[in-house]
């Protein structure tokens, strides 16, 4: 079966999210990035790119080039939210979604044609749905592998849709500029240039041995690339997105105290799951099922991710207080989502061979009820 891989890349993602939330910014050069003098540009809107502004450019340079530009700080939380919406859409088309960054993903759609039609119509549908849900545009590349899909999505931006059909593969691969190949940095590029390599096709003039000697094992990969071969699979990210616990009550009740007590034991179960998986969550959800099986679901966001039983419990109680308790419930559940790894962010390194450092691992315990 032919492999079909899509590479979806959001157009000027941060800047577009800002423009979408504030219509008055539409059509203006918007630059999102560090706001201090030392900051760099994270994303420039297409209007700003006309001034020669690109990501990683120092902010002061961007200000010099475009003094009338709208400079905004990075609001990561907001972008993450939009990103998860987009990833959800992608997941509805294929289980094989590999998110490579906040605004970029690969999608393996080999074999879903019967469900969703040709790759091109899948890509069109994806673009439509993303536009509908977020009013943002993206560029999609379609190719037999990840490498070419990425190169394809990059050839036409914004709002592009580029297909590299298997029969045109070789002629296209040959003409790809070597610095556009993923994994080729400045150093490798210089080295290759000195060997007379400017296009990906030029790689084939070099032998395996020479490539291995000059750039190591990555050289062999490049050789594969130059033949249009990239067998790396689309690896879906399978970590849990939420954790929860629920319990059907012994008998239907709307007694606040009884429900509270139930919440405490569920908070402990969820807290323990989080801790044993090295995770923290920042959205707490309370689920109540009424006697007639209708559902009430309420969520609240925490200022900071947590795995503390106490905090989960208190959040649950807060949601319970906000709930309409006039009818009886048959089931109560507590969940956390927007999970992140404890290891994320800063990490204090420890002096080697110091035994008691390990004592700071959170200890699981069950409160006596």
């Amino acid at each position, binding site marked *: 079966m032919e492999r079909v891989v899509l590479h979806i890349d959001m157009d000027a993602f941060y800047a577009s999210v800002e423009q979408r939330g504030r219509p008055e910014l539409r059509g203006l050069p918007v630059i999102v990035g560090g706001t201090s003098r030392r900051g760099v540009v994270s994303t420039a809107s297409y209007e700003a790119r006309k001034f020669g502004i690109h990501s990683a450019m120092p902010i002061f340079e961007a200000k010099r080039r475009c003094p009338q530009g709208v400079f905004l*700080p990075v609001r990561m939380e907001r972008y993450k939210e939009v990103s998860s919406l987009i990833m959800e859409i992608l997941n509805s088309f294929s289980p094989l979604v590999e998110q490579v960054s906040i605004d970029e993903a690969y999608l393996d759609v080999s074999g879903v044609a019967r469900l969703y039609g040709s790759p091109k119509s899948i890509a069109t549908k994806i673009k439509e749905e993303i536009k509908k849900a977020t009013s943002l545009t993206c560029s999609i590349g379609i190719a037999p592998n990840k490498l070419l899909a990425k190169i394809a999505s990059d050839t036409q931006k914004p709002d592009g849709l580029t297909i590299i059909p298997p029969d045109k593969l070789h002629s296209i691969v040959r003409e790809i500029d070597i610095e556009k190949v993923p994994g080729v940095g400045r150093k490798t590029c210089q080295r290759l240039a000195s060997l007379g390599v400017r296009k990906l096709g030029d790689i084939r003039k070099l032998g395996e041995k020479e490539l291995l000697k000059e750039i190591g094992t990555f050289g062999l990969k490049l050789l594969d690339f130059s033949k249009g071969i990239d067998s790396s699979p689309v690896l879906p990210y399978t970590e849990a997105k939420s954790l929860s616990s629920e319990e059907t009550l012994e008998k239907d009740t709307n007694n606040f105290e009884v429900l509270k007590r139930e919440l405490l034991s569920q908070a402990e179960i969820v807290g323990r799951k989080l801790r044993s998986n090295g995770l923290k969550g920042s959205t707490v959800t309370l689920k109540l099922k009424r006697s007639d099986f209708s559902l009430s679901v309420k969520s609240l966001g925490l200022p900071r991710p947590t795995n503390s039983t106490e905090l989960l419990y208190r959040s649950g109680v807060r949601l319970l207080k906000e709930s309409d308790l006039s009818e009886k419930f048959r089931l109560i559940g507590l969940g956390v989502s927007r999970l992140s790894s404890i290891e994320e962010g*800063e990490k204090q*390194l*420890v*002096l080697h*061979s110091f035994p*008691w450092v390990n004592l700071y691992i959170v200890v699981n315990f069950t409160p006596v009820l």
Partner: protein
Amino acid sequence: MEIKVTRDELYRALSRVQSIVEKRTNMPILSMVLLSTSKSEVYITATDLEISLQQKIPANIISTGSVTISGRKLFEILKESKKAEIHIKEKENNRVFITDQQARYNLGFMPPDEYPVFVEPENVTTAEVPSKVLREMIAKTIYAVTLEEAGFKLSGTFLEKIVQGGKALLRMVATDGHRLSLIDKEMETMEKVKFDGGVMIPKKGMSELAKLASEDDLIHLGFKGNNCVAKTKNSIIVIRLLESKFPDYNAVIPKKAKSVVKVDRDLLLDGMKKMLILATESYRGVKIILDKGSMELISINPDLGEAQETLAVEYKGQPLEAGFNARYFIDVLQNMESEKVEVGFIDNSSPCTIYGEKDQGFLGLIMPMRL
């Protein structure tokens, strides 16, 4: 027992024991202080079973004996009194009468024979230690001791006697696994004191030792069995040593730094304090960027924003970048005395070292953060 004592002296003694008398009530007798008499002095004893402190002050002994009084209440009584003399008299039925000739207090007390016996280990060989030096050593290490979090009382300051160039040195080392502070001071008198393999004194014990060291010019310091004993003219403190093993700290001290910066201590200290303004529980890192003649401090907190300062320093090495907890730098620097300090780096995952010319024998070690 009946005594008359100077209010000021008793007040001073009582304020010293406030950090020792137990505030929790699992053993009520520990919230008491024991007053007992000799011919011309009254002994004031307090203990939390880990640390015992006995002080003596001159008194007019009308009749000998002993009483226990709530340490907290006696302190408050003395604090409110404006009179020069305090009269304490034991009454029947375990009651004690206290007056300053203006206010009169009748307090119940617990039987003195239930008070934990103050055992001063016998035949302790002690060394005379200059209080000033001891205070300096404690101040320059105590901040690095692991906090006694979640009931783990495993850690304290490590004391060790080392011989260097034929001279006896007293060494103190404290660490929490993220940083380490070490200080050596020459101490000839230590030669006769035996504590082979070193001892570990709990953090609270160290701070009590530091207080004791501000009372007198000299302290007699010794070790016996499981205890550390320290005496001044009027006070004795006995501290139970920790039994856990101190890690092999020598292995983590880098032999030689690759890049050494010389920087004004105040300048760096102030810089770190400014960076700390943006620190929160999740983001406490400061990035240090070294380049020829400059040290740049950057603090980036995604929740708040960024802060930056560039310091002029003496540096000729290669450019280098590493992240650190600003708090750790502040702890080290504000306890040093040198005008200029030498900060040595290896790379962004090896400990950085801090030395100062006027901080003889001192080494501060800080592990980087990955930012």
